[in-house]
């Protein structure tokens, strides 16, 4: 007996109906599962990271923006503070400060200006290469390397802050010295540079040599014998090389150079408390926040939304299931004659039911495959999705 063969024939003959049924079942299965995965991942990313980042100092303003930018390298850039803020922490002898300047991007990945201490603090291991040594070099996260197919020795160019900011800072072409091992955190998607390099990108430092001509093929749209057409990406960029590094310098007082935050690691609990107390005064232009508190508040809100979403999905799911039952029973009506014929030919009612069941089973199986594939994709891209949707 070829129930599945017949069921498959029927389903492939009624492609549109099958497609709609599969689509509906896939969607009602995928929606809550995706939401579950993404929320879990966001919770994991947010909470883990927040727990491992004791204190943050930044400009007064939105604590959430400060945390999101400093911990997850989110796009919302907080007001900058001066490097002096870091010196102040250093002088207290209560905590180890790590600078963060997260404002620029390279090929859509955030450039994180920090010190080498960041690698030690986050315990980041190198999959390839080593830490940056010279001004103008960078270390890239695992996913950056994979997505852009880059490895040590390659270069990556910083993007101008806005497309219209052409008059100001030239993009910096940075040499990659190392690729980090995957961490399943925002670090996988970051381009790390030493803080002075970030300042060079910010236009605070420059060299006296000419900007280089592009060899980056991605900016070229069309190449003809005597004519090269470039797309809008083309612009000149600076590169710090061994030849011109001596001419590179920063302008102004380094204590006044900008940071987006200082990641503060107190030497002990007591030091942390004392330090926090010092930033409670009104005169200070800085705020000190405990990322965990900020994220806990955020998570509480996310969970409220999650409950509402769950209820909505439940309702939509039930409605869709009812609609599916309706569709199926209507199609049974349409097939009454066919069923009668099969019966007369000598097929039992149970076999007929089994034939129809096989159709449902196949539809569910196809939906499960789609759902599985989709879930695998979601799982695979959950970090990025969470970054794009929540962070």
């Amino acid at each position, binding site marked *: *007996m*070829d*129930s599945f*063969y*017949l069921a498959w*024939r*029927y389903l*492939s*003959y*009624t492609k549109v109906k099958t497609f709609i049924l599969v689509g509906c079942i896939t969607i009602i299965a995928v929606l809550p599962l995706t939401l579950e995965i993404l929320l879990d991942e966001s919770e994991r990313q947010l909470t883990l990271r927040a727990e491992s980042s004791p204190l943050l100092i930044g400009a007064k303003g939105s604590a959430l923006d400060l945390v999101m930018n400093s911990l997850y390298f989110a796009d919302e850039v907080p007001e900058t503070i001066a490097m002096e803020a870091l010196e102040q922490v250093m002088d207290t002898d209560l905590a180890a400060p790590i600078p963060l300047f997260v404002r620029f991007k390279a090929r859509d990945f955030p450039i994180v200006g920090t010190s080498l201490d960041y690698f030690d603090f986050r315990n980041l291991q190198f999959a390839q290469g080593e830490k940056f040594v010279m001004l103008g070099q960078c270390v890239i996260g695992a996913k950056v390397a994979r997505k852009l197919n880059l490895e040590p020795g390659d270069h990556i160019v910083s993007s101008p802050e806005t497309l219209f900011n052409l008059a100001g800072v030239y993009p910096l072409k940075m040499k990659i010295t190392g690729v980090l091992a995957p961490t399943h955190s925002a670090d996988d998607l970051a381009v790390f540079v030493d803080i002075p390099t970030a300042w060079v990108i910010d236009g605070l430092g420059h060299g006296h040599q000419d900007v280089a001509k592009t060899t980056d093929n991605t900016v070229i749209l069309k190449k003809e014998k005597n004519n090269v057409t470039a797309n809008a990406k083309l612009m000149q960029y600076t590169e710090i090389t061994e030849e011109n590094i001596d001419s590179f310098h920063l302008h102004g007082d380094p204590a006044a150079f900008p940071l987006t935050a200082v990641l503060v690691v107190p030497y002990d609990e007591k030091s942390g408390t004392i330090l926090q107390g010092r930033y409670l005064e009104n005169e200070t232009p800085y705020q000190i926040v405990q990322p965990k508190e900020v994220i806990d508040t955020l998570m509480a809100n996310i969970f409220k939304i999650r409950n509402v979403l769950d209820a909505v999905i439940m309702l939509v799911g039930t409605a869709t299931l009812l609609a599916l039952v309706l569709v199926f029973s209507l199609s049974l009506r349409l097939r009454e*004659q*066919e069923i009668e*014929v*099969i*019966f*007369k*030919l*000598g*097929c*039992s009612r149970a*076999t007929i039911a089994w*034939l129809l069941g096989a159709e449902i089973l196949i539809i569910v199986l196809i939906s499960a495959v789609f759902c599985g594939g989709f879930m695998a994709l979601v799982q695979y891209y959950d970090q990025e999705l969470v970054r794009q949707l929540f962070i």
Partner: protein
Amino acid sequence: MIRLSNIHFSYKSGDFNLSIPDLRVEAGEKVGVVGPSGSGKTTLLNLVAGILTPEKGSVCINEMEINCQNDTTRRDFRITNIGFIFQDFGLLDYLDVKDNILHPYRITGALKLNNDVRDRADKLAIQMGIDDKLNRHPSALSHGERQRVAICRALLPGPKLVLADEATGNLDPKNKVHILELLFKNVDKHDATLLAVTHDQELLPYFDKVINFNDFLREETL
């Protein structure tokens, strides 16, 4: 040989009663059944096929009293020994011609689908003149072609009895005779018995015998 004796049958709704004191069809006979609508022609076929069970009396096919068998036996008997041909062809749109012909083999464990069966199906299709249409779906065929497919399906398991319910009812006059001739030829080739319901007086002369429900149950030997 088919023999119905002292049959009494009524539907549950109670608005139809059929009594058949005695009816015999000899093996290899081609019998036409005529009568007005609602006189019980289709009911007769269903009783013979074991789809309906009489309240009284017996239906014997080759010594087997079909109305005394259980459901499974009757179904297996039907699918292996009886070929059904319907007025509206009863083909499945989602299967192509080949699969329609092989359809009985796919819905029961009583018939085994193998290469031999497939070869026979091909030969039958050649005999019926539809071998070039095996990959088409019924919706792409003419009425005549569809009925040929239905005949192939009915004959493929090698039934000893073919029940045709208005098999030519949907066909134009030219096709009617042609299809009937084809059916007769193949029924003969398979040594089968044919019991064909029709309301087409023109076709009656082709049958060996006609059972007329008009003045039930008067057998007319032609």
